[in-house]
């Protein structure tokens, strides 16, 4: 008997759910948490994700209300619908977490990311880079004779697409902020 020969995805004879979490439908959700801005609050949220094995695709955090000591943490996470439910419940019961919004579920939302791209090159590649930057409405925020830094705001997909285009043109470095998101409409 070899106890360790477990096939991935078998759960038929198991007391735990050994199902491969990727076997089910994986959803991508953007969660916004309003938290008390206090020391260690980000560590709590991150610790929850790592401790319970949840995914973080992107995470942004900044103070949004100085007087009220409130910060907004925007997390993009992936998982089965059950796992997403668990993540929200686990976040919701943390003491410094005041509110958890699932922007993906609650209706249309605007999601934006800011990215900086350093592209180095000469000649045609340099011209092509700046031409594409115009098409993507990226701004040049730094320039030398052999390099540009482009600044761009957009959805994660748009930023991915721009990075893909820049790669053969001499992309040296990328810095991304992660997703900031708000639900559309009045509330």
């Amino acid at each position, binding site marked *: 008997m070899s106890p360790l020969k477990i096939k991935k995805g*078998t*759960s038929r*004879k198991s*007391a735990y759910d050994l199902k491969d979490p990727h076997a089910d439908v994986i959803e991508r959700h953007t969660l916004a948490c309003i938290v008390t801005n206090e020391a260690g609050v980000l560590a709590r949220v991150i610790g929850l994700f790592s401790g319970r094995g949840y995914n973080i695709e992107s995470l942004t955090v900044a103070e949004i209300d100085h007087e009220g000591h409130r910060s907004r943490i925007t997390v993009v996470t992936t998982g089965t619908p059950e796992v997403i439910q668990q993540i929200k419940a686990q976040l919701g*019961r943390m003491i410094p977490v005041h509110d958890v919004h699932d922007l993906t579920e609650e209706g249309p939302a605007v999601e934006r990311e800011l990215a900086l791209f350093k592209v180095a090159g000469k000649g045609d590649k340099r011209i092509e880079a700046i031409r594409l930057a115009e098409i993507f409405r990226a701004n040049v925020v730094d320039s030398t004779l052999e390099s540009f830094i482009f600044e761009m705001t957009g959805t994660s997909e748009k930023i991915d697409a721009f990075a893909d285009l820049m790669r053969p043109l001499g992309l040296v470095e990328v810095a991304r902020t992660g997703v900031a998101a708000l639900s559309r409409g009045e509330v």
Partner: protein
Amino acid sequence: MARQMTGAEMVVQALIDQGVDTIFGYPGGAALPIYDELFQQDKIQHILVRHEQGAAHAAEGYARSTGKPGVVLVTSGPGATNTVTGLTDALLDSIPIVVITAQVPTFMIGTDAFQEADTVGITRPCTKHNYLVKDTEVLASVVHEAFHVATSGRPGPVLIDIPKDVQFAKGSYTEKNKASTGHYAPKLKGDIDQITALAAMMETAKKPIIYSGGGVINSGDSATALLRELAKETNFPVTSTLMGLGAYPASGDQWMGMLGMHGLYEANMAMHDCDLMINIGARFDDRITGRIDAFSPKSKKAHIDIDPSSINKVIHVDVPIIGDVAHVLEDLLRIWKSRGRKTQAEGLEKWWKQIEEWRAIRCLDYKNSEKVIKPQYALQRLEALTKDRKDRFITTEVGQHQMWAAQYLGFEAPNRWMTSGGLGTMGYGLPASLGVQVAHPDALVINVAGEASWLMNMQEMGTARQYNLPVKQFILNNERLGMVRQWQDLLHGNRYSHSWSEALPDFMLLAKAFGAKGITVSDPSDMDDAIMEMLKFDGPVVFDCLVEKHENCFPMIPSGAPHNEMLLGDAGVEDAIGDTGAVLV
């Protein structure tokens, strides 16, 4: 104007204002200002333990047996890290404790100072919440908030880390009723539509079962009373998790016994075959569910829990009700009664007949011996000789003896049974028994132990002696790590890798060394006399009961198996655990 006092004075004042009468602790450099304040007052009793882990478990025992939060005070660094096991234990079993740790002064934090540890960092995942207080002005408010968090909603451990300079500095004291606690207010009332849906399901269920858990006990005496009323009014059978024992009385007609891995046959069979499962304050722990995809396949499931993250975590339920058990049961009973108190009498009669057939298996029967004490026999005699004591409190260590205690001892009231359920902490029972005895000085407090678990925190016998705590350490000594050995039997071809100790101490001498009474018994015919001697002695007793070394604990749901495939005895043990079950614990 608010009262001015030092941080150390604030801590003691806040504890007094919170109604704390006892704290368990161990002093050290960084905690000295608070200890100096304790020295100068007489409202709070301080119990000096022998190891900080003991303090945390003692506080758990105190909390579980009283319903009040337990309080711990330790120093920085090792003092704090030693409480980590107790904090995790309290987190998993939802026990309210407040642990105050001292810290090096704020200006030394981060310098690897003597006895410095990142206490809030280390304990973040093993507390319900924790605080590092860097300003004396907010200290009192934080202490009050900590008690609120520890005891509200799903209870749990809360830690407050207080640097030494914050203890010395002066600030204004925040009164209890002025402290900020408002933003943490878990919902107590359940959703009325869901409760009504459950009431409707109760009216049509032919094979219902109530599956109650530790949440009933945490919810308080009224929850226990309402659970009993619900059972009585509906004639539904009641089973309970390890943590929930005592909420429904063991002598009650509808009592099915504990369920789960070492639960009773009838309880597990009824869970498997039921058509309505009402989970009240339990959390579908893996010791309960066994194989998830075969867990109670034919039933509709309702789940009452105050913690939203417990709902649909492991088992999908049809009727989730988020709220406090007592509040929800009150509404449930009211709604069910107003709808005409209907149940399926005929269906229930058949269901009870089926249950009687399962009961007739007599799953707790075992082969007794006249030569050697069977652990089950020892517990049966302990039960027979102590069950009439209304003030009997039982703690346990972890392992076979714990499961046998849950099977063979009967609990008539809540808060009488203290055991490490979720974390399974060997070494819990002895310090927990001290905490219980401190809270109930005249009660009979027995720690049912295995010798291996007991040795893990045996230093606390010194505490028992110092405070004249007459705890009875009922050690079922099989010279083995019994449960480990049992799993090696089942899973690893009887290769007993390191599951016994070749150099056990002489427990009689050990008792003597600690100033306790030692009793040893090895002949079954001496069992009753030995127990009576233990009960009559006014003081701590180390009871060394030499039992059968190779007894296995049954019934058992082997890991990876569903509820209706229980092992009832040693026969059928071969290959009971398949490949996939073998990696489980």
